[in-house]
């Protein structure tokens, strides 16, 4: 394969129900950075039905060009029509890099594309760089997060990676950015598409929150003391759009449910934000949350080990600070 034929950084801009997903904007922000290093363009692949008027927002997020495929067959994500559309774009446009969000959709689509185009695919990268030889360096956790591996796809194109949502930074939307919007026509093979039928789509409010999926966690430990303390955490979590979690001290005391417990005998979490309130930070707890992107700890005891893993440590009384913080965030919204 002549890899020099391939250029530009492509992003699959995932939408659901016509709503562009955050991860698409995050990937465009990263793609912008990579493309500037390579002196190439950022191209968004935007598939759906009745979505064209949103293409400009992808340009504002960093794209130079948006390939829009507006077709009824792409209305709701299905493996085959999406694979066909992107494969045709790959064959005709020859992208050097293709990034896809590591969502349920992206993790279904990307391997299908890699096999159809016989190219490599790195799963759920957390760090993306360009090497001196202009190769795409994709770094990801392995062995349950115990080890990091940097992966290259030297002789095949596109160099593909799925990327965890919430890891890359989106650009501040710049509505003055100019770009090209292209209507792309795909020759769909309907016989192949019709092999899988969508019977129904059901939206569900998850009854018991899965703290492992939450992007923001407000966690309480022994310092929270009682149900009244938990209410303060819940108010903060609600204000931040997150969930409450607990250390073992609170679940053993029956103050919070076991399914909210973080740590060795509970769940491993990796949210964007973890606020540890009144948690001392025993190793059993820390092992379950130390991978969080941002850790803020509030504890009365300034020698608490939780401060060793916190990005920001506050020595103080959570019963004062947490409600005050909630109130301040509320006022900022107004």
């Amino acid at each position: 394969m002549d890899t020099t034929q391939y250029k530009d950084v492509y992003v699959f801009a995932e939408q659901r129900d016509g709503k562009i997903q955050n991860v698409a904007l995050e990937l465009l922000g990263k793609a912008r950075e990579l493309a500037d290093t390579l002196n190439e363009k950022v191209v968004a692949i935007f598939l759906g039905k009745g979505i064209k008027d949103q293409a400009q927002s992808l340009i504002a997020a960093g794209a130079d060009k948006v390939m829009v495929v507006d077709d009824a067959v792409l209305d709701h994500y299905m493996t085959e029509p999406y694979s066909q559309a992107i494969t045709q774009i790959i064959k005709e446009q020859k992208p050097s890099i293709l990034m896809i969000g590591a969502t349920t959709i992206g993790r279904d689509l990307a391997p299908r594309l890699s096999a159809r185009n016989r190219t490599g695919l790195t799963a759920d990268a957390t760090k993306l760089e360009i090497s001196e030889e202009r190769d795409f360096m994709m770094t990801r956790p392995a062995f349950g997060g115990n080890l990091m591996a940097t992966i290259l796809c030297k002789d095949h194109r596109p160099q593909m990676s799925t990327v965890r949502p919430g890891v890359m930074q989106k650009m501040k939307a710049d509505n003055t950015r100019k770009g090209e919007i292209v209507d792309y026509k795909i020759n769909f093979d309907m016989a192949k598409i019709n092999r899988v039928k969508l019977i129904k789509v059901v939206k569900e409010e998850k009854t018991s929150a899965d703290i492992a999926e939450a992007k923001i966690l407000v966690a309480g430990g022994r310092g929270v003391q009682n149900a009244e303390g938990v209410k303060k955490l819940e108010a903060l979590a609600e204000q931040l759009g997150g969930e409450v979690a607990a250390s073992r001290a609170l679940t053993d005391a029956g103050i919070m449910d076991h399914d909210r417990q973080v740590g060795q005998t509970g769940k491993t979490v990796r949210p964007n934000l973890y606020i540890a309130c009144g948690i001392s930070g025993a190793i059993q707890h820390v092992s379950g949350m130390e991978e969080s992107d941002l850790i803020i700890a509030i504890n009365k005891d300034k020698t608490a080990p939780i401060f060793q893993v916190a990005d920001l440590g506050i020595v103080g009384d959570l019963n004062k600070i947490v409600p005050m913080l909630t109130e301040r965030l509320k006022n900022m919204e107004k």
Partner: protein
Amino acid sequence: MKIVVCIKQVPDTAEVKINPVTGTLIREGVPSIMNPDDKGGLEFALQLKEQYGAEVTVITMGLPQSDAILREAFAMGADKAILLTDRRLGGADTLATSSAIAGALRKMEYDLIITGRQAIDGDTAQVGPQIAEHLDLPQVSYLVDLQYDGNKTITVRKETEDGYEVLQMETPCLVTVLASAVKPRYMNVAGIVEAYNREVEIWNADMIEVPAEHIGKAGSPTSVAKSFPKSVKPAGEKFEVSAEEAVDLIINKLKEKHII
């Protein structure tokens, strides 16, 4: 109905420890298990066996010691077991792995192929959909429920971030299964004893007739340039201030990290 379940032997990553001095993985003493999502897949297959008399074959690609999970599958109720093992298949990334397994599947009869969603040692979730692509089969991943009409139609429930979808397809097809969807049965005692007397078929690279450039290291577009222990981040700043100032510090941090 003929079902093939693709399973993998994995180190129990929950038991993997890091040497705190050298920062390297301590692999010794880490138990090997049947990958949990794959075991969920096997359970679905065994339920179809009970309801419709399906024949259940398990296949794994790996080192000779992967034999252990095939015996476990026998003891759970699998009818046939195949171990695809060959040095030429080693060093494979997901594409080369899926090419080899798809090659083996082409030599078998199947109506339904079941794989786990992902293996806990790699968490890639790639091999199932890649096998489907190599075999030109329709696929549904992230499956949590499966109903079969006894003829050709399979109705599945797929878990998504916002709820679930119900999809339908005809055999032959492939599904990838979540461990949380089903509780795998235990091995039965008679089965355990018997499992060690049953024959596991051993297949090598010649038998799957996949071009050499599609398997093993040569068939792998990706390569690991380096691996390293994850960095331990240094402790951040600690402040002993009034509650008002503390709130200011937190708000500033949340803004800095684009959380608010």
